[in-house]
């Protein structure tokens, strides 16, 4: 009996995979000229847009699609057959988030690659592979698929990080990322195997049913904690956060943006699937763990960000802190229900993606003129390049969560509301204190943009045509979210 495959359901990752193969072929057969680099970038961009088009089409179709299901003959009686690949609201939001971010990241890559020195074909191929994983992951509904998709997200990123050849920092970053990632995968696989061993199923829906029976046994608890730890590495949650700054700094800026948005979104997608979909009954076990992780993550991220002088390192630690905010609502899943908790988390993630990508786009712009990319290089940016300066200021204000960056404020309000409703007052307090710490370094950076530069001669920006649309897109989305945050809520009202 052959499997029926719903090709419409898997169209988004399929389109990306086909584009990846195409890019590799084109790279092999087209002459190596600067124009080829641009062409490859455009092909990649087209692939991402086609994939995004499929996601939109799936969303307008408006029904839950499932494929790679257990045949009814084997599924036994009662309930629908469990599927491995499911396209529902959650999948669509995260796939859309990943692909929309990918548009910005591809544009940033084109700007980065324009300088030469990095092989364009490999770069775009690896980037597309990562995206295949990132789009597949939120649709995965069994543990094996989840792990495979997560590895597909991670593995190409090592290579992307190291692609800047003969660069000591980049190589170091790649090795660090590799070691950390492999360890985390091993830890997670161990947890997965324990869960499988106790429940006898890998499908998340089956796990949800079976786990009730074995709830509270130490083995299940250990399994849950190990899986959480494994994902903790991916989202750079404390105590698995130490790699973030070095890797972000060593990697090319678009890769850092990829790590901070796409990779992180994938990690959260996996975490949410495992915790809220597969193990909702165990919320008593993992809820407090997630709450403590969240509090530690936001605190550590913010405290470490305070003393940074390098822009990318600061963004690295700030993104660690933001991970803590995304984690926070998950801690109250048990009390307020998965729908609301996950909704708050994903809403924060969506808004975070827009504002963080905007910041990274400007950082890339400055990186082209100031090699070390320290905060002092941003002095007077608002006067040298008003568009870039104001865009960065807006993104930073958003990240801080202040008006006029209303997107960030509302994102924080969603999270606050979820935690307060869930009765975790102490976490709300920790988050409030952290918000203030965050304000300090974001405000100082934003203030630098408006202080006249020291006697240094202002360097004109070398035009990077692809960078302006990248920046414009991210900032425009952040502005739209500021004016109409209801959009995000509608998207994530799962």
């Amino acid at each position: 009996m052959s499997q029926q495959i719903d090709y419409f359901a898997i169209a988004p990752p399929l389109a990306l995979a086909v584009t990846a193969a195409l890019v590799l072929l084109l790279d092999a057969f087209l002459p190596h000229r600067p124009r080829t680099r641009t062409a490859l970038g455009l092909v990649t961009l087209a692939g991402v847009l086609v994939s995004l088009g499929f996601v939109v089409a799936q969303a307008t179709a408006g029904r839950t699609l499932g494929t790679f299901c257990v045949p009814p003959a084997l599924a036994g009686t009662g309930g629908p057959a469990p599927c491995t690949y499911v396209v529902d609201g959650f999948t669509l939001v995260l796939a859309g988030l990943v692909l929309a971010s990918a548009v910005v990241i591809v544009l940033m890559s084109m700007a980065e690659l324009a300088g030469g020195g990095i092989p364009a074909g490999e770069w775009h191929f690896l980037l597309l592979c990562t995206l295949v994983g990132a789009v597949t992951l939120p649709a995965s509904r069994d543990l094996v698929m989840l792990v495979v998709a997560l590895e597909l997200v991670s593995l190409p990123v090592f290579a992307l990080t190291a692609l800047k050849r003969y660069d000591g920092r980049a190589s170091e970053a790649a090795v660090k990322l590799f070691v950390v990632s492999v360890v985390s995968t091993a830890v997670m696989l161990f947890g997965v195997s324990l869960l499988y061993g106790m429940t006898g199923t890998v499908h998340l829906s089956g796990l949800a049913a079976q786990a009730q029976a074995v709830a509270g046994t130490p083995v299940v608890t250990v399994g849950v904690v190990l899986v959480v730890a494994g994902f903790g590495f991916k989202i750079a949650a404390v105590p698995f956060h130490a790699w973030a700054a070095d890797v972000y700094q060593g990697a090319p800026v678009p890769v850092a943006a990829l790590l901070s948005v796409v990779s992180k979104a994938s990690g959260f997608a996996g975490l949410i699937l495992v915790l809220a979909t597969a193990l909702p009954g165990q919320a008593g076990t993992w809820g407090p763990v997630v709450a403590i992780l969240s509090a530690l993550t936001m605190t550590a991220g913010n405290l470490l960000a305070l003393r940074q002088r390098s822009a990318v390192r600061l963004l690295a630690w700030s993104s660690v802190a933001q991970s803590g905010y995304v984690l926070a609502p998950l801690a109250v899943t048990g009390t307020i229900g998965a729908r609301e908790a996950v909704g708050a988390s994903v809403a924060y993630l969506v808004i975070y993606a827009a504002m963080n990508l905007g910041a990274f786009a400007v950082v890339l712009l400055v990186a082209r003129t100031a090699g070390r990319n320290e905060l002092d290089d941003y002095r007077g940016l608002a006067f040298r390049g008003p568009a870039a300066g104001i865009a960065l200021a807006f993104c930073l204000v958003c990240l801080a969560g202040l008006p006029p960056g209303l997107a960030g404020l509302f994102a924080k309000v969603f999270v606050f509301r979820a935690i307060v409703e869930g009765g975790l007052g102490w976490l709300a307090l920790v988050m409030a204190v952290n918000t203030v710490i965050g304000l300090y370094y974001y405000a100082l950076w934003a203030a630098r943009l408006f202080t006249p530069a020291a006697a240094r001669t202002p360097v004109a920006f070398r035009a990077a045509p692809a960078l302006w649309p990248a920046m414009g897109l991210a900032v425009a989305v952040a502005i739209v979210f500021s004016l109409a945050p209801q959009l995000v809520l509608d998207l994530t009202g799962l």
Partner: protein
Amino acid sequence: MTGTGWLLVALLAVPLLGALGLVVLPRVLRPVLRAYGLVLSGVTLALAALLVVMFDYGRPASPQFELDVPWIPGLGLRLHLGIDGISLPLVALTALLTFLCFGYLSWGRARAGEFLSARPRALVFTLLVLEVGMIGTFLALDLLLFFVFFEIVLVPMYFLIGIWGGEGRRAASIKFILYTLLGSVVMLLGLLLVWAQTGTLDIEALAAAHGSGMARSVQILAFVAIGIGLAVKTPMWPLHTWLPDAHTEAPTTGSVLLAGVLLKMGTYGFARIAIPVLPEGALAVAPWLGAFAVVGIVYGALACLAQRDLKRMIAYSSVGHMGFVLLGFATLTPTGINGALFANVAHGLITGLLFFLAGAIKDRYHTVDMTALGGGLLATLPRLGSVLTFAAIASLGLPGLAGFWGEMLALLGAFQPADGLPRGLFLTYMVIGGLGAVLTAAYFLVMLSRVTHGRPPPLPAERLTATVAHRDVRTYELLAWTPLVALILLFGLWPGLLLALTTPAVHTLLGALP
């Protein structure tokens, strides 16, 4: 929505669109920049005046010109604007002071060539955004909307101090923003607590409920959290330490708006949110609030006595005056709160004028150090000296001028506080507050004796620029100051004008108290 809701929207839209216009069409507007800000703030002032005329004085207790449309249904957040007897004077004050600031800048400094030359476009933009935030705060009838406007004000004020300020501007601006942000986050937590407990963000509905549905402990917690946020902005002793630096370093317009409007946002929050929404919390915390208030009064006065810098002295005097306002609120009586609201507006007018004068003195002497100024201002610059004397006497609370009524009523309220408050304690507060009023008179008189009276010192030539003798009060200064002087006289001689507006509103907001 009633048919007149557009008026409030226009009040916010005019400066906002004006600010956006500066971003969109910088080249076109560059030559007319001076008139641009003046015209926009003038239109805003005209709209505010229209509001004052059209306001239904028969029912000042209920919000008028209401606009109520959903903004973020998912959060229950609505774009709910309205104006009542408490907010009307403050909106008018804001529009007036902003207009006067623009007038001061565009007529005066253009000739001096000093102020509008440093990033004029950014300055006009900043002031317009500031105006949006300030007016919005007074119009908002939704907790989160209030918070958004409350916060929007910080950013332009930060830049106003940080870019156009004096020598220590960086430290002062960072201190200002960190202090107020810290308070704001605590306030946000309090607002969210109220929201989590009652399920609504609508201030009107919350005020009508008079705190029902919230346990006493929750009310106390929420009152303390919201109160801290508001107290930082007010500022209340001991959270005032950002104020002297910010005032001293800010440019004249910044100081005027900071003292005239921004501080009012804190006290307005007490009248609009903290007391009506959380009556039981207010009752429990009021004695503490009163205690901090009287400490502030005495502390402010003593600190003023020790100052040599004129601007710094006026800044500290704000701490004392705000102490009276807070004491009025703490009594929880109609008399006290009326006094507080009156003192609020009066302080905006008087201190706004004082900072204008300090700016004028700084322009002429390039210092505001009182010993360096010497004395004899009345002899060298008789008109400036007399206006300064007038403002100082108004500020110290001479009967017949605006400064008197608010503080008198606040003290009177403390004489007979609301039932449930310890009367003995409040009598003590009243006595200490009265002592503070005497000290206030003392430091202003000391200031006058040092600056305006006496024999003018033989100043070195470079300090007194050759033409300074001819530069007594100039036309643009006169135009900027006359409305303030007139209003100080008007409210001093006819306090009923303002009290008639606030009294019914105060009775409504105190509805639930015994």
